[in-house]
Structure formats: C-alpha cells, structure tokens
C-alpha cells in the first residue's frame, strides 16, 4: 500500500491559480522491484489528481491511450470515490516518472492488460482521500460536522442547512486538510460510476481530426526525417554516399546511425525522396543466410533438447505408458508483425539544456532512457511528452524509433526533427511475435479420460522476462492450464535465433491457446467425447481457475445452444485464463469445398468487476479481429535474414467485409478486475480451427489458414 501525499500544486491550466493536488508516494522497497530497478525517482512534483479553483478536475493518467480506453477507465476509478463531475474532467498523460509505475507490474508501461487491475485500489484511495479533504474543508468553513456532508457531481452538500459549495471553491482550503491514509472505500454495491460505461474521453476528438497522435506533432522550425536501416537483422552500416542528394529540394543532411541512415529535409516528402538517392552499403551480419525454413527446422530440433521444466504433475512417462490410447501432434506458428496503423515516429528536440521527445509510447521511461543513452545525458534531462498512440499492441513499448529521432535531432542545432518510418520500414523492422512450436503427447485411459499430457514448448523468444528462475515465460497458457490432468508435464526451450522479437497483443496467449486447445480437441475426438463435455470434465476441481473457466465454458455453451447445434455446421469451442481474466469463444462455421464461412463468433469474458462494460466489449471484438487477421493470413517470412513482407499488400489486415458477426458477453463477477485489452485475441484461433475440424474433419496444426489452401468469408445473417 502506498502513502498518499499532498503535492505542491502544479499550475496545470492557465485559469487555475490554486487548488488540491494529490499523489502517491511509493515506499522505497516497493520501488525497488527488479523490473523497475532502472527507474529513477521523480524530481518534480507530480500528481494523479488536481482540482483547480475553476472546478476543473485534471486526472493525470499513468496509462497511455492507444484505443484500449485507459483515458476513460482509470479516471472512472478515481471519479467513483471522488464524486466529481465528469463534465469538468480534463485528461493529461503522465510524464516519465517512477511514481507512475504500475503497482502490480512495477513499470510505467501500458502493457500486459495491467492498467485497470494494477491501479484499481490506488486510484480509488486517491479519489476517496480527495473527497474526504474537500468535505472536511467545507464542513470546517461551515462549522458543521463532515459526517453530515455529502458529495454529488463536484458539489459538497450539507443537507441539514441546505448549504452547497463546489469542489473548486473549497479546493485551496482542502489542500491544507490532513491527508487521510486509510480512507474507507465504497463497496461494489455502492458503485455508481464503475460498471456504468462513461463516454470515452478520447472519442470526440477522434471524429474531426482534432486528436493529436505522435505523428501530428508540429513545432516551430521543425525539420522532417526519413529512415532506412539494414534489411537483414543484426546488420550494420558500412558506408554511405549521399552525393546524389546534394541540391535536391529541401535536403539538409544524411545522418548515419549504427544500422542505417536518416535523411533530414525541410518536408517529409523531400526527406523520403532524398533517402531513395542515398547509396548505402551494409555489413549484413551473422543472420544474412537465415530463412523461414531454417527457423522451422531450429524449432523442431528443439524438441530433442531437454528444456526447462515449467510444470510436472505426477509422472507423465508412466501415465503415457499405461494409457489405453496415445496421441502425438506438433503445432507451429510463424513470426508476426504488429502493423500499427500509425507507423513508428517520434519528434525530438535536442538543446544544451537536454532533450524533449514527443511520441506515442507505451513506455515513457523507455523513451526517456533511450533518448538519454543516445545523448549520453542523465534521464532526468529528457522530457517525454506522450501523445495519442495510433495503435500500440506491444510495438510501442520499444524505443528504437525514439533513439533514431534523437540521433537526427542532435545534428540540427536545436531545431526539432520529426522522424517518420515508412510502412515498409515498419513491417521489416518490427519486434516480432516469435515463431513457436509445441510437440504434444497425450494419453487417454480406457474410459476416454485424459490421464497424461506432455507439452514441449519451443519458442524463438527469451527464456524469461523479469522472472529469473521461474517457469519459462513462453510456456504461459500451457503450463498454467486450469485442466486437472493427473500426469502433466510442460517444458520450455528458448531458441533465440537473433530475429528481433517482442510483445504482440496477448503475447504467448496469441498462439499457445491455439496449440493446447487444438490438441485438447484432438484428444476429445479420440476419446469419442463432445469437446465441450471433455473440457468440462477436467474443470471439476475446486480451484478459482477451474471454477471461473468452467463458468465461461458453460456460459458459452448455453449462448451457442451447444446441445442443439445446427446440423451441417461446425462448432469450435475454446476457453482459458489470460491476464487475470477468463475468456472463451465459440465459433460456428460451415464448409463448402475449401471455403470456410464463419456464421458467428460468440465470446465471453469473466474479467472480475467490469469497470467500463462497453469498452470491454469493444476490446473483445477488437482483440478477436486482431487474432483473426493472424489466423487467416498473418505470416512474416524471412529470406536471407530479411523480412519478405513490405506493406498491407503482402501483409494484409482483416477488412470490414471480412469481419464476422460477433456477440460479446461479460459474465457478472465481483472478483477483483482482470485484464481486458489482450484476452480477446487468443481464443479465435483454437475456436475457429476446432470448428473447421467439426465441419470438415480437417485439423489445422499450423497457421495461417491461407497456407492450407483454405479461403474464408464471413456472413452476417
């Protein structure tokens, strides 16, 4: 639990001359989590909540806005306890500072579906503390008891005397009140904001072009930059010749960086055209010969190696040996790019005082340290101005585009530089969802019960992220499966092939559920069982995971009318836990020749307390669309160490015409909130693959669908 502190008021708005500002002081020991070790304590006063004398309520959100709704759901949590007027709300993005590190995750990063679940308690405490201070200030000035005062819509009301005052009118006085450290919080039953979808704060400015994304930054005297880096991973710049650029309109300079060149010009188009004329010679590096077939071979070679044990219940070898029926199957998925709609970009200004950067980033402190390292200055001399993100999906947790912009801006004598990637650069220099494969062995007893399951997970990933000694990160969704299987062993082997990998919406849950939920389906079929009942039978034990996953499964079966499935159609089901929530999907398809027609997608989530239900539904649909794109045609392939895809023509996204009919449900729950931004991505792959099997007896063990000579369409009736 953190300490709530009063902060010297920071003048956030010109009209604001005083008021109340509250913040959190993180105790030193909490600050020193391994993941946050690099973060420095803030030097300037910072706050989460500021109430001005003009009645404005400024909420500084530690979560950035990339469409996931953080700029609405986090303010709702504060406002629930504060009782402020939603109309007076002003949202501001937090600067880079350790005080904004997510209490659950330890970093100031909008990742891992951590925002609501990480801030749920702390933001309510801040809202409640502010409400108490405002109420006490009013009661003090009226010489009445604070317990007789209530709060409604930014007003403090003393009903016995009929007196009222606004938050703003009392804010300065409230700032001198003692800060309650343990403010009583509402019960769930008392909520009037949480659970009732408030209008998203970012939407109005996204319908008339007013919303400012990183790419929209405009500064006086700003120059523009275009960048080209070595096509092969790990390649370096050897030399360049920019003589053909001299005299081109607007051309300023060519800035060499470690792996490529940046061209600076008066306009972006001029920079792009000049960049085409720069002759560049690269040292292609060690990966110059790598192609996709080798990646696959390396993953498969990993099955023969021991790996790190992530789960070991019972004795899987004995269980398999005694099984009445044994199955073995290998599943595999390729690399994927994020392809955020807004190509990577950053605007930077470097002066003698330090550096300022403006960008859409999921990780302001990574942007700050990236810029600082590039310049060799302390991080506290870098100011990060977070803008709206035109998609993040994990890609914008990286800072490569920030360091590039800073590299350019340090050569322009204090003139700001806006560096924008081409889409081609974006597709070919991503931090990819790793390619991965799992080899399963399963054993059924004579009654068709799953008695032994082994999964060997091999991923072109890292062995652990912030969990040294723990189970390999990339065995998630397999090793932590909620099914009760008496003999259950999972190992993980890291095959880092040197291809840049990163976090892609729902991370390991983007592909591991496809594999394990596909193999579970195979086992159900082999056992002669109904795939839904087969899963049900393995969720009868008394753990929270089993109970809640079973709840999702049963809910889905009812909504899909599983008992009375439409003849001739194939139904696929999948459910699992992800990001602190429980998620599942049923897909209904029909097959005609090689055409898969999706009739409907039914999704359900148990995410605990649903803070912003309408937004959760939007996230489920959007996550499904992101997952469906990957299922249908998502594939990054390598040839000679370079990515072969270039743009939306050869890395196509789902189109509006292809979006199936989707029903999304939130299962009522009073459990603590779980994540909602990512869980929706994973279930579509196994549910669709299982539905295709149900319809046509064809088992998909690799993705995408397009490589199985299957085509796809969605119907809406």
């Amino acid at each position, binding site marked *: 639990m953190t300490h709530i502190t009063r902060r010297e008021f920071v003048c956030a708005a010109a009209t604001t001359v005083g008021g109340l500002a509250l913040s959190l002081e993180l105790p030193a020991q909490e600050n020193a989590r391994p993941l946050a070790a690099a973060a420095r304590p803030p030097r300037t006063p910072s706050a989460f909540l500021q109430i001005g004398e003009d009645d404005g309520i400024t909420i500084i959100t530690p979560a950035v806005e*990339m*469409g*996931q*709704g953080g700029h609405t759901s986090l303010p709702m949590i504060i406002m629930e306890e504060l009782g402020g007027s939603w109309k007076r709300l002003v949202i501001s993005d937090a600067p880079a500072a350790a005080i904004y590190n997510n209490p659950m995750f330890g970093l100031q990063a909008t990742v891992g579906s951590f925002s609501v679940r990480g801030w749920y308690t702390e933001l309510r405490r801040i809202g409640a503390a502010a409400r108490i201070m405002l109420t006490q200030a009013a009661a003090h000035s009226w010489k009445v008891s604070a317990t007789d005062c209530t709060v409604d819509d930014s007003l403090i009301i003393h009903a016995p005397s009929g007196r009222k005052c606004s938050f703003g009118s009392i804010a300065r006085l409230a700032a001198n009140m003692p800060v309650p450290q343990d403010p009583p919080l509402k019960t769930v039953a008392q909520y009037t904001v949480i659970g009732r979808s408030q*209008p*998203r704060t*970012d*939407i*109005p400015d*996204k*319908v*008339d*072009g*007013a*919303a*400012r*994304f990183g*790419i*929209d930054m*405009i500064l006086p005297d700003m120059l*523009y930059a275009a960048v080209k880096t070595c096509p092969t991973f790990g390649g370096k710049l050897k030399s360049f010749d920019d003589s053909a650029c001299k005299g081109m*309109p607007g051309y300023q300079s060519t800035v060499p960086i470690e792996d490529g060149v940046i061209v600076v010009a008066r*306009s*972006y*188009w*001029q920079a792009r055209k000049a960049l085409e004329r720069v002759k560049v010679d690269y040292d292609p590096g060690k990966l110059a010969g790598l192609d996709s077939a080798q990646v696959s071979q390396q993953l498969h070679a990993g099955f023969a190696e021991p790996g790190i044990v992530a789960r070991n219940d019972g004795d899987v070898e004995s269980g398999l040996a005694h099984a009445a029926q044994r199955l073995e199957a290998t599943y595999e998925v390729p690399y994927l790019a994020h*392809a*955020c*709609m*807004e*190509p990577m970009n950053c605007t930077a200004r470097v002066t003698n005082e330090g550096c300022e950067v403006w960008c859409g980033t999921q990780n302001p402190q990574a942007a700050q340290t990236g810029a600082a390292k590039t310049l060799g200055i302390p991080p506290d001399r870098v100011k990060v101005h977070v803008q*709206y*993100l*035109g*998609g*993040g*999906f994990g890609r914008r947790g990286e800072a490569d585009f920030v360091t590039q912009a800073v590299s350019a801006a340090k050569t322009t004598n204090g003139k700001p530089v806006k560096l*924008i990637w081409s*889409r081609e650069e974006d597709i070919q220099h991503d931090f990819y969802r790793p390619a991965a494969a799992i080899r399963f062995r399963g054993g059924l007893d004579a009654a068709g019960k799953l008695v032994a399951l082994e999964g060997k997970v091999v991923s072109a990933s890292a062995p652990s992220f912030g969990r040294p000694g723990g189970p390999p990160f990339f065995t998630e969704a397999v090793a932590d499966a909620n099914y009760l299987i008496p003999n259950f062993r999972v190992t993980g082997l890291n095959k880092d092939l040197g291809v840049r990998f990163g976090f892609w919406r729902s991370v390991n849950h983007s592909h591991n559920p496809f594999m394990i939920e596909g193999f579970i389906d195979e086992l159900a079929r082999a056992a002669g069982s109904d795939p839904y009942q087969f899963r049900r039978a393995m969720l009868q034990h008394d753990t929270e995971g089993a109970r809640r996953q079973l709840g999702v499964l049963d809910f889905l079966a009812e909504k899909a009318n599983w008992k009375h499935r439409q003849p001739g159609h194939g139904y696929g089901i999948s459910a699992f836990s992800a990001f602190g929530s429980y998620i599942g999907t049923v897909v209904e398809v029909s097959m005609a020749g090689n055409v898969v027609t999706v009739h409907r997608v039914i999704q359900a989530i148990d995410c605990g307390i649903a803070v912003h239900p*309408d*937004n959760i539904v*939007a996230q489920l*649909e*959007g*996550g*499904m*669309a*992101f997952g469906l*794109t990957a299922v249908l045609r998502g594939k990054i392939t390598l040839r000679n160490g370079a990515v072969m895809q270039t*743009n*939306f*023509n050869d890395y196509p*996204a*789902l*189109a*509006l*015409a292809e*979006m199936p*009919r*989707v029903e999304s449900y939130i299962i009522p729950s009073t459990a603590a909130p779980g994540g909602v931004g990512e869980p929706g991505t994973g279930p579509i792959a196994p549910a669709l693959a299982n539905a295709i099997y149900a319809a046509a007896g064809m088992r998909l063990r690799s993705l995408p669908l397009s490589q199985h000579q299957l085509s796809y369409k969605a119907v809406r009736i």
Partner: protein
Amino acid sequence: MFVLNINGSEHSIEAEADTPLLWVLRDELQLTGTKFGCGLGLCGACTVLLDGKPVRSCVVPVSAAAGQPIVTIEGLSKDKSHPVQRAWVAESVPQCGYCQSGMILSTVALLNSKPNPTDAEIDLAVTNICRCGTYNRVRKAIHRAAQMQSGEDAASKPTTV
C-alpha cells in the same frame, strides 16, 4: 505553385509537383487529421474527398488535386455535428482512432451516392483498414448515420399535401 481549394478556402502551395496531396495537407497546411498509413493507397487512412469522391491522398500528386474542391476531416463540420460524426460518437466507434478520419470520409462519400446502403454496398465502399477491429461498430454507425440523414432530409423538406 498550386492553388488548392480545401474545405472551401483557397490555398497557394509551393511544393514539387509529385508531392502527394497527403503531405501537403499535413505538412504545409497543418491539417493533420488526414493520416499517413501505407503510402501506397492500400489502407485508406489518408482518404479525403476530391470533387466529392473518396481518394487516397497518399497517391494523389498535388498537381492532380489543384483546382478541384477537396474536403478533409477538418472540413466536415465546425463542431463535430455532421451526421456521420454524430453517429460515430453515438456508437463509440473509434479505438485508437488513427484510421477513423478515413473511415468517416469513405462513409460520407458512400452516403452521398447511396443514402441507405446495404451491408454489401458498405463492404464494397468502405475498404479502409482498422487494426483495432472497430469494423462492426463502423457498420452500425454507417446505418445510424444513414437513418439520421434521411430523417433530417425529411425534416428539412417543406411539407407537401
């Protein structure tokens, strides 16, 4: 020099003839609501109306746009009041929002030629890419905007007997 007619105002532009309209709008005129997504006319984030027709401004040279009326997202209304904008807010369509200027302008063009489009007509006309997956809300908002527009048209027509 080119004279562009944008959102009802004329602007004299100094730019090389092959400069895409997109970058003139964004960098010269600071109309940043029109977005860069792919540079090849594939994604539709840069959609504007040129003489009433939706075009991908990243592949329209400024020289080809001169002299024709251009409408960008900023020119749709002064106060977010265009029926398509209101429908977008009512259906909470945008997520990250980056593609939405283009989505909205594609919709405006569609509704101008087909005031009450079928789903199939929407499929054909709105080919903009949205990575957040807002498509079903886009579709709902298009139908809602069509209803709003037809209601308003009916209301604005003099009653006849």
